């Protein structure tokens, strides 16, 4: 029994770290812009497809395809910001950008549907079938190991970047108070662009690693994004530490729910948890309250 518990724990951490990658992007964007980018999901999907085509159509190395997906994600992030958020920021509307990204998301998904079709692509990474035995009778596939290693490295790098480099601190400054940061000589628009690029790069990367695990259709991103939203809220919008913890938590919850309860109920469990959080602690597990200035 404990083997199963441990095994599912490992699976949960794998899932969780992927969710964290995707959710981090969302939370970074929210932290800096106070905006939700619905099209984030589709960056994940596009990242997955980019990795797929790089590996199978161009015969590239799978590990390299992760880098390719990262790049593709970065470019997409740049595009979305330049085309949608930057122009709409002038208008000062709170809800219009969100609605615009819903439009972009619907558009992207269905263009992909027309282009790639609804039939799932079999994205087998060369590491999917490698099995590595761990302690206590548990095992981990090569693919999952890569996921954990790459995710952890990336998240750690990002965390260090945010905390210790000037750029990172500038990002946090812009998140806290855009006007003042501007007065301090930081160009908020450049930083916002940087945030988008980083966030979408993470999403693309997440997609490349998710491809072999998930069912790869144009809607692959959506299955992840709704959980990513839950994670961002549970962890607290704009809160990096909270998102990491919440992501791992959700990964574990999903893994254990699949094993011990009904897999079909995962969404219900996660979302009920989400609604509970919103009811009792809308600012998330760790975040501080943002008082509205009258």
């Amino acid at each position, binding site marked *: 029994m404990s083997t199963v518990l441990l095994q599912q724990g490992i699976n949960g951490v794998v899932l969780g770290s992927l969710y964290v990658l995707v959710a981090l992007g969302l939370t970074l964007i*929210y932290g800096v812009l*106070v*905006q*939700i980018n619905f099209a984030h999901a589709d960056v994940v999907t596009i990242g997955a497809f980019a990795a797929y085509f790089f590996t199978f159509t161009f015969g590239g190395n799978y590990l390299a395809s992760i880098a390719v997906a990262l790049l593709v994600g970065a470019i997409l992030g740049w595009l979305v910001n330049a*085309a*949608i958020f930057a*122009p*709409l920021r002038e*208008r*000062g*509307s*709170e*809800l*219009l*950008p*969100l*609605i*615009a990204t*819903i*439009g*972009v*998301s*619907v*558009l*992207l*998904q*269905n*263009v992909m*549907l*027309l282009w790639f079709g609804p039939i799932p692509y079999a994205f087998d990474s060369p590491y999917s079938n490698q099995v590595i035995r761990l302690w206590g009778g548990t095992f981990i596939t090569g693919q999952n190991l890569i996921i954990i290693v790459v995710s952890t490295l990336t998240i750690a790098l990002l965390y260090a970047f945010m905390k210790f480099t000037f750029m990172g601190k500038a990002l946090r400054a812009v998140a806290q108070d855009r006007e003042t940061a501007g007065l301090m000589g930081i160009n908020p628009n450049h930083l916002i662009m940087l945030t988008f690029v980083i966030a979408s790069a993470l999403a693309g990367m997440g997609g490349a690693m998710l491809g072999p695990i998930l069912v790869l259709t144009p809607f692959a991103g959506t299955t992840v994004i*709704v959980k990513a*939203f*839950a994670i961002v*809220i549970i962890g607290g*919008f704009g809160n990096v530490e909270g998102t990491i913890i919440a992501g791992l938590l959700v990964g574990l919850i999903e893994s254990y729910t699949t094993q011990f309860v*009904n897999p*079909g*109920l995962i*969404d*219900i469990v996660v*979302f*009920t948890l*989400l*609604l509970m959080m*919103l*009811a009792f602690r*809308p600012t998330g597990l760790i975040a501080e309250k943002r008082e*509205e200035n*009258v």
Partner: protein
Amino acid sequence: MSSRDHAELANPFDRSSVSRRWLLGAIVTIGLLPLVFQDSYWRTNLIVCALNVMLAIGLDFILGYAGQLNLGHSAFYGIGAYVSTLVITKLGLPFWVAFLCGIVLAGAAGMALSMFAVRLRGHYLAIASLGFAVIVHQVLVNWISLTQGPLGIYGIKPPPEIALPGLPVISFGNSANMFYLVAGFALLFYVLLDQLVRSPIGETLTAIREDEVSASSLGINCPAWKVFAFGAGSAVAGAAGAFYASSVGTLVPDAFIITESFTILAMVIVGGMGTLIGPVWGAILLTVLPEVLRGFGDLRLVLYGAALTLVVLFMPGGIVQAAQIVRAQFDRLRARLEAG
């Protein structure tokens, strides 16, 4: 929140005579449509169009007037559909009782969501409503003993015949009559909501949308009014759901996935959020256009996505704003011609 200008300040009682003309025009159009379109394919589309109009105006009441970003409208649609159907099949109650149940429960769900989210601002509410819609959909899929899950419920009967003395029996198996019923209700709901919007209630909701803190300082009980708006809008969605079930005849949970919420949102935005008549046009356009571009059936959602994005970016007031611009150009042209 909305960056479009408010409509004119003229005495709305002047507008009521215009409105009466429009009303007459709408009734006549509704009356003629099934005569123009005789084939069942187009008649089904007309019914879907009327349903979408109902959904769009309900959402606009919540989103465009009260300013609540509700991304879960599909849930109320689904609740109305399933509740009304199950009341008939499991409780054996007559259609119109079931219809009422669908409306009441959808409205109650809307109020519950709003009360739950009352302290949540903008984005949080959006996610909460999305989460709610996902949960409702998942419940419909997984509670197989109640809803038969993905297999769906088949053979749902249309509303019962109406036999009035001295008149021929009105049967709703006839798609023309079904259209008249649905469109009639859509018109009724439109008129009801329109009256509300032109009254101090509309002013109150607008104040809440523009600035809640300000509105509270004027004595407006913002939470209560938000719950009211949510309840009204979702009740209308529930009615649409009941009609959907009885006109289409089959009910599957996937008719109410969250993409449906986005579709309705697109209709509201493309038509012109916060104008009530705008969403009517938006619903008609986005229902009819993909059918006109037949052969590109899969393009329907691509169209919605593109329309939504482009409208938000370039014409946030939607069709209504575009019409105002065109009218202004015409007026300017006319003035110039008259000046010689």
